[in-house]
């Protein structure tokens, strides 16, 4: 039996021991424990070291807002999770846990030297301490910051778990299953609404779980809770525990993260670890309750100092006393009940120290009955104890003066600085908050979504108030949907209402500058830091936040925001509402990347499109590269070949005999209808009216701004039908652009646009022997140069398959592109390979395609152009139909900026020493000019193997067309390369080979 466990008490199963380890040592807890409650039952308060000062820390809360007790948990390879809140992690058999931020061990830590160097690490230390000397940066500061940055160790292996995601539509979503949420779900469900009730904890009940002494409707609160939950279930309410509402988005969409397996002893086969729900609700009811605030005083972070409400939870829910001799320091009535419960459970209460002068008579009497010493109008000015609190120093405060200190011995100190309504989700919706001067809290004000806020979340305190308000919120929600229900009634006995006052840091008789009075425990921000930030000129609360990092830790300042605001407001001499609150953002609590990724990981992270010939390429050892979403064969290495050798061979084979290339990824759009030719005239720069049936033409597409957007060969199949091809990556964009103009600018044109990219498999044959390979397979078409010249298209039969056959070339060789229905793509490929055997037909990939086209100076849109290149810049003026009155982008070609001299123009580059240039390398005219040099352009394409025996490159260079023959310089880390500007056509400049 654990030393601090009360037999039979709480909601844990006293007959079900659970073993676990913490920092290598074995402990025993009970089924129903969290790691924190089990450690506390064993008398362990020291659970971690703080982030900046490595100060010893214990659990300060019993919930998801915990800033201190962050641990690493693991269950085998790949399943290590850092920064798990010990207050939320349920115990499971064999759970392995470890503390963080300590070396060599938790009880003795070298990094705690930071604590001695407190002055060095004050507000803005990142900006000040590491400024000089410059030489310290690489060797001293950066390694230090890197070692110190981040909480815990990051996992080093791939996560073997799966994560699910689901959508859910409902009438009413209730967030938080405390008294208000349960009452709201009940009235909404009774009225006939579909209701979802979620809670982040392992069981529903909220504060009721920590208060069994209250009686509701003549039953103990736990009995009432059990029957009410059973009733909700019977009403068909979907009830989800271990489910955190992490974000509240537009139009009542709430994201829920449901944790499914972290609490289980054994992992079920194939069960997802977490499930992300995207819930769309007609009405959302936020019943998230309130978070208790710490008091800010020197040494308020010592292990054993915790929130009073947390101690009450550990006692009543887990049957754990947090100490034998407990002092209570408070400015709110609620902590008195925690003291009474602990006293009644057998702990000694060393004293109740209340900062207020006026105490409630019933509370004072209840304390007197129990023989508890009460100090009113007192402050706390320090704590002692190395790894656990041993005493607290208290002083009376009268008329603003702090009197003589007294020491009170204790092994735990419970504090309460009042409660903050939990309005994070409400803030996600940009709902506005209003400052309530009486309770010194922000309360929800103007709503932007169809939501209700109930209970402690809007500042109401006590069980009856929460139940009544929750009931009303449920009624209001269903009323908005046209449902009605009569008001519920609740009879509450032994209610625990209360009020309190909010504080800045507590007054002290010592130097405030030396006090380590923590506001943000997780980021180690003290009251002194906040005041220093204001002194150093930070005026906005957002600046104070960033300068001090207050509220920027993983808990997003759940405990520290209001305390930080009170202190900053005091330092600024303003009222808190004038200073304002920083913004809360999703997620409400830290959420695993796995939950966000869901199914979108590995192969399903992004769609991979494959052509009908992909399987053949894979079987023949192709190396692949991704192009847009396609997987394309990159090159086909033979045994012993590297990429360089394979590409050189593929280039040679194609130029010498024949190469075969899978071009199926080309975008294809069918432009059809009586006005098709007019539409083409308006969209593309080229003239289309006179393009004969059975002829094709290179088409150039501009944006309205005059810059090149796409290109491709376009065939006229009939008077009213064009077969348009686009770049592989541009297909969807081009169709979208065409649809845009057709639908919104020229709705009078009778044209239909259809994407046919995936309907056609496209195979390119190139090389002097291309015709000889193709001819035996073709039916119904004379392939001779006279009958079917370059830039022809026809419908015919190839290998017995219906085909659209183009004669065109992207290599400069005699070339054909054969389109057949996609399902026949592989059949055609095999037929061509068979027919090509006699000519040593060579399959080639995208790299060889790039080399061959570059040798001919054919551009690739998106590689040799970048969205700021005009047809003139690219040397494509010939593709413009100058007699056309208009086309998309025509007017822009006369824009002053586009006709000015000195624009970057596409040219060829040949290095003097035969070295290869690097794509993206910057070009200068004079390598001896002072730095920073004037860059006049960059290399867009560069290849070192091919037909010519020397590397070639293309580049855009300012005024390049007028600089033919000039030498430019390309400074690289290994030295300056010199290159001569040439034409972009490196091979067969007269195009003789095309005409074969």
């Amino acid at each position, binding site marked *: 039996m654990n030393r601090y466990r009360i037999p039979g008490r709480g909601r844990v199963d006293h007959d079900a021991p659970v073993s676990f380890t913490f920092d290598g040592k074995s402990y025993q807890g009970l089924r129903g424990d969290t790691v924190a409650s089990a450690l506390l039952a064993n008398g362990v308060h020291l659970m971690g070291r703080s982030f900046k000062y490595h100060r010893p820390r214990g659990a300060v809360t019993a919930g998801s807002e915990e800033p201190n007790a962050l641990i690493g948990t693991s269950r085998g390879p790949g399943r290590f999770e850092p920064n798990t809140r010990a207050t939320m992690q349920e115990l499971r058999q064999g759970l392995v846990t470890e503390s963080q931020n300590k070396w060599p061990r938790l009880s003795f830590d070298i990094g705690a030297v930071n604590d001695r160097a407190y002055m060095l690490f004050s507000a803005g230390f990142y900006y000040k301490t590491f400024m000089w000397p410059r030489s310290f940066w690489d060797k001293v500061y950066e390694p230090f910051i890197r070692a110190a940055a981040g909480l815990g160790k990051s996992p080093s292996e791939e996560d073997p778990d799966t994560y699910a995601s689901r959508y859910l539509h409902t009438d009413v979503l209730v967030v938080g299953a405390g008294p208000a949420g349960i009452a709201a779900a009940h009235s909404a469900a009774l009225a006939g609404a579909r209701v979802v009730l979620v809670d982040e904890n392992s069981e529903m009940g909220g504060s009721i779980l920590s208060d069994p002494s209250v009686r509701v409707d003549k039953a103990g609160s736990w009995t009432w809770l059990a029957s009410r939950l059973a009733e909700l279930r019977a009403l068909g309410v979907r009830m989800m525990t271990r489910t955190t509402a992490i974000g509240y*988005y*537009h*139009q009542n*969409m709430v994201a829920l993260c449901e944790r499914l397996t972290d609490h289980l002893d054994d992992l079920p086969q194939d069960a997802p670890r977490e499930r992300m729900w*995207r819930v*769309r609700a007609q009405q959302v009811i936020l019943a998230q309750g309130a978070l208790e605030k710490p008091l800010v005083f020197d040494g308020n972070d010592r292990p054993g100092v915790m929130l009073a409400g947390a101690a009450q939870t550990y006692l009543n829910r887990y049957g754990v006393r947090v100490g034998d001799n407990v002092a209570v320091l408070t400015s709110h009535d609620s902590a008195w009940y925690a003291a009474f419960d602990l006293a009644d459970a057998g702990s000694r209460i060393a004293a109740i120290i209340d900062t207020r002068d006026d105490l409630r008579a019933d509370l004072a009497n209840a304390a007197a009955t129990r023989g508890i010493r009460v100090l009113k109008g007192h402050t706390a000015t320090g704590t002692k104890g190395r790894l656990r609190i041993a005493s607290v120093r208290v002083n009376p405060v009268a008329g603003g003066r702090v009197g003589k200190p007294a020491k009170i011995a204790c092994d735990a100190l419970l504090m309460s600085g009042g409660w903050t309504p939990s309005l994070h989700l409400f803030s996600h919706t*940009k709902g506005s908050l209003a400052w309530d001067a009486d309770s010194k809290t922000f309360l929800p004000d103007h709503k*932007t979504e169809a939501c209700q806020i109930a209970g402690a979340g809007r500042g109401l305190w006590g069980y009856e108030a929460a139940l009544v308000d929750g009931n009303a919120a449920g009624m209001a929600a269903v009323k908005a949907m046209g449902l009605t229900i009569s008001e519920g009634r609740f009879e509450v006995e032994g209610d625990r209402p209360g009020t309190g006052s909010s504080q800045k840091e507590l007054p002290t008789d010592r130097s405030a500058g030396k006090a380590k009075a923590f506001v943000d425990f997780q980021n180690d921000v003290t009251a002194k830091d906040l005041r220093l930030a204001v002194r150093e000129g930070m005026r906005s609360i957002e600046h104070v936040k960033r300068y001090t990092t207050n509220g920027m830790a993983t808990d997003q300042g759940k405990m520290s925001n209001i305390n930080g605001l009170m202190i900053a407001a005091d330092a600024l001499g303003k009222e808190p509402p004038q200073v304002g609150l920083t913004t809360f953002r999703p997620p409400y609590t830290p959420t695993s990347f796995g939950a966000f990724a869901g199914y979108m990981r590995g192969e399903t992270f992004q769609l991979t499109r494959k052509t009908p010939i992909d399987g053949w390429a894979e079987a023949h050892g192709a190396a692949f590269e991704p192009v847009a979403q396609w997987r394309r064969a990159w090159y086909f290495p033979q045994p012993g070949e590297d990429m360089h050798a394979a590409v050189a061979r593929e280039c040679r084979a194609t130029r010498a005999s024949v190469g075969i290339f899978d071009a199926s990824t080309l975008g294809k759009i069918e432009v059809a209808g009586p006005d098709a030719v007019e539409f083409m005239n308006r969209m593309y720069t080229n003239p289309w009216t006179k393009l004969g049936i059975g002829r094709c033409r290179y088409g150039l597409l501009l944006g*309205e*701004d005059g810059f090149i957007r796409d290109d491709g060969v376009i065939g006229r199949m009939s008077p009213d039908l064009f077969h348009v091809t686009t770049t592989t990556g541009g297909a969807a964009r081009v169709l*979208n652009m065409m*649809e*845009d103009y057709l*639908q*919104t*600018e020229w*709705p009078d044109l009778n044209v239909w646009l259809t994407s046919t990219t995936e309907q056609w498999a496209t195979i390119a044959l190139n090389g002097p022997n291309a015709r000889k390979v193709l001819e035996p397979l073709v039916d119904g078409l004379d392939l001779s140069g006279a009958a079917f010249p370059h830039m022809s298209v026809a419908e015919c039969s190839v290998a017995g398959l219906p085909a659209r056959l183009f004669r065109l070339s992207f290599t400069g060789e005699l070339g054909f592109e054969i389109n057949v229905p996609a399902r026949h793509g592989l059949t055609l490929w095999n037929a061509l390979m068979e027919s090509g055997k006699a000519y040593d037909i060579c399959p080639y990939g995208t790299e060889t395609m790039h080399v061959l086209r570059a040798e001919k100076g054919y551009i690739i849109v998106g590689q040799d152009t970048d969205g700021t290149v005009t047809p003139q810049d690219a040397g494509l003026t010939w593709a413009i139909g100058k007699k056309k*009155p*208009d086309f998309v982008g*025509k*007017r*822009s070609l*006369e*824009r*002053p900026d586009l006709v000015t001299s000195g624009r970057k123009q596409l040219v060829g580059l040949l290095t003097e020493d035969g070295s290869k240039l690097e794509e993206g390398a910057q070009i200068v005219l004079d390598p001896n000019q002072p730095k920073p040099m004037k860059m006049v352009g960059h290399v867009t394409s560069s290849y070192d193997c091919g037909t010519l025996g020397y590397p070639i490159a293309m580049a855009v260079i300012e005024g390049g067309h007028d600089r033919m023959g000039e030498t430019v310089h390309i400074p690289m880390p290994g030295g300056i390369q010199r290159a001569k500007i040439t034409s972009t056509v490196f091979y067969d400049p007269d195009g003789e080979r095309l005409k074969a």
Partner: protein
Amino acid sequence: MLLINCPYCEETLPELEFAYAGEAHIDRPADPSALTDEEWRDFLFIRTNARGTHFERWRHIGCGRFFNAARDTVSDRFLTTYKAGQPRPDLKEAAE
């Protein structure tokens, strides 16, 4: 995630199904060559950048149609959607 009503499908569907397509009611001039450089610049680049009600175009990827919407850029709320080619709606009516 926003919910958007496609005036062609007459369905209210999640934002995932839609793509934004810039400000609405900017007609391409019938004869661009008649425009001065300044007028053409304004057509190409100058936009309202409204704080508050903004008339804009969206495309429903599901049915492929472009349509117009009035959206409040402060609250990010759709006030109404309507078919391409229709005039700006009277938003007092739409609010009711």
